[in-house]
């Protein structure tokens, strides 16, 4: 029997508070099963028959509507793999709010792999928000391995906003984007690791159409003895623009490796990358302390805003 616990409720509120109201389209997945789901007039959810997951159909009149698809895992030892496919009609506007929270109070690992594919029609505008979070007093690892594939037709717009707040022991994120002419991509990735956590983020963007553009902003904070690796790659196969910016704050005995890669295969491809890793700036700390904040408070404010 799949009964939702208080811990699961708490985790759900962290990753997706509005879903509790269950307005519009939603699908709540809990410990490997769809707990509840609902359609709206313009967003239809269908369960896959051959494997775990859903197909989501968003019609052109969605008009900025939201769909919430949170996942909670709270059973130690569980590996939950789910395949979700989104089909967005040309001209549609939609906000997709996903997220995964793991509560692990046992000694075995709890893991969720969310494999999402987005098929974005011509001129459609999609905002995809994803929040990852882990908690629980158990020694078992909390593992999240998201795979995100985005296929953008002409003039489509995709905004990807991901945040890993805390508590995830291990994550390997794979993101692939294929862009047609005039498509625009905006990615904001925020990541915090602590203790001995490990995080890897690989991203490959193929800009295949003239006038396509991508902006990738990655901000991270590594504390304790955690290790982070970023490898964003932008490939310009046409006249296109891309800007990759990776900024990391490193603390304690942490390790951050940033490997931005740009690859131009067309004379009109303009691709820029910037990467910076450093400790918290002493001048920022002094400024905030001169406003009356203690060193610890100042540090927390700097991190909070950096990852905002």
């Amino acid at each position, binding site marked *: 029997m799949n009964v939702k616990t208080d811990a699961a409720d708490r985790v759900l509120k962290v990753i997706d508070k509005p879903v509790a109201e269950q307005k519009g389209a939603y699908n709540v997945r809990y410990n490997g099963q769809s707990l509840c789901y609902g359609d709206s007039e313009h967003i239809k959810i269908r369960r896959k028959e051959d494997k775990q997951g859903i197909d989501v159909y968003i019609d052109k009149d969605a008009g900025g509507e939201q769909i919430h698809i949170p996942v909670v895992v709270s059973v130690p030892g569980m590996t939950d793999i789910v395949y979700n496919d989104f089909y967005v009609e040309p001209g549609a506007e939609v906000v997709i709010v996903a997220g995964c929270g793991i509560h692990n109070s046992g000694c075995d690992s709890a893991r969720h792999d969310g494999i999402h594919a987005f098929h974005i029609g011509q001129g459609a505008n999609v905002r995809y928000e994803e929040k990852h979070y882990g908690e629980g007093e158990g020694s078992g690892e909390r593992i999240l391995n998201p795979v995100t594939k985005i296929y953008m037709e002409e003039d489509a717009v995709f905004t990807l906003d991901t945040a890993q707040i805390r508590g995830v022991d291990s994550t390997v994120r794979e993101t692939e984007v294929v862009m047609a002419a005039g498509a625009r991509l905006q990615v904001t990735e925020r990541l915090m690791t602590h203790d001995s956590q490990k995080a890897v983020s690989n991203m490959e963007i193929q800009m295949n159409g003239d006038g396509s553009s991508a902006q990738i902003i990655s*901000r991270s904070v590594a504390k304790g003895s955690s290790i982070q690796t970023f490898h964003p790659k932008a490939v310009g196969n046409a006249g296109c623009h891309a800007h990759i910016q990776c*900024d990391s704050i490193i603390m304690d005995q942490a390790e951050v490796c940033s490997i931005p890669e740009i690859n131009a295969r067309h004379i009109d491809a303009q691709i820029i990358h910037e990467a910076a890793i450093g400790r918290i*700036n002493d*001048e*920022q700390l*002094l*400024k*905030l*302390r*001169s*406003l*009356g*904040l*203690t*060193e610890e408070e*100042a540090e927390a*404010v*700097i991190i909070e*805003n*950096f*990852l*905002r």
Partner: protein
Amino acid sequence: MLEVKHLSYQVMENGSMRRLVDDVSFCVNDGEMLVITGPNGGGKSTIAKLLMGIEKADSGEILLDGQELLAMNVDERAKAGIGYAFQQPPAFKGMTVERLLNLAAGEPLSEAACCELLSSVGMCAREYLKREADATLSGGERKRIEIATVLARSHKICVFDEPEAGIDLWSFSMLVDQFERIHEKKQESLLLISHQERIIRMADRILVVNDGRIQESGSREEMLPKLFPEDSGCACRNENAGREDGNCECENGCSR
């Protein structure tokens, strides 16, 4: 009242000790405006940093209303009542100007209050409130926001380290008006490090610091004729007037 007694600070430079501040003593009375001026590298900004605790003095005393500050760190001095505007304020990635002002105020500010603060330093609030206080802002913009953070709450004494640096003339004029308003109210003392004539002329008292020492000090009436000889009716505008070595030797005591 701020009392500074025999303040000294030295650093190791090329294997030998160099005194950046050497036995400096002065006070700032309640509601008074003191301007410290003098040549670049003379120790003015170091004195300001010693007051705020950004640098630690080797010896001396700093008393604010009788309370010894020397053993306090930066945030304790802020809580004791010192406001401090940095000469070169840092950029904050991700932090909006509005958030920074709220932190500076120590309490949530209404949007109208934030707007008023930014307006007082010559900024159009609507353009800046939601912007990040990061490196996309120019040095002058960051400087004006820096000054607004100090104005965001009341202090016993506000220390401004070269508030004019990097600021355009129009904003500078508004800033001077702001200093005048604070000065007229006499509720807060002001200590300004400045080379700017308009600011120096506003001071109740002026200190000239050079080589880490107070070279001269006195009331505005005493100091202005020395700093600006034309004020005293001295006609020696020709730099070579008076003496062969180029220094003036007129009866007004002009030292240029």
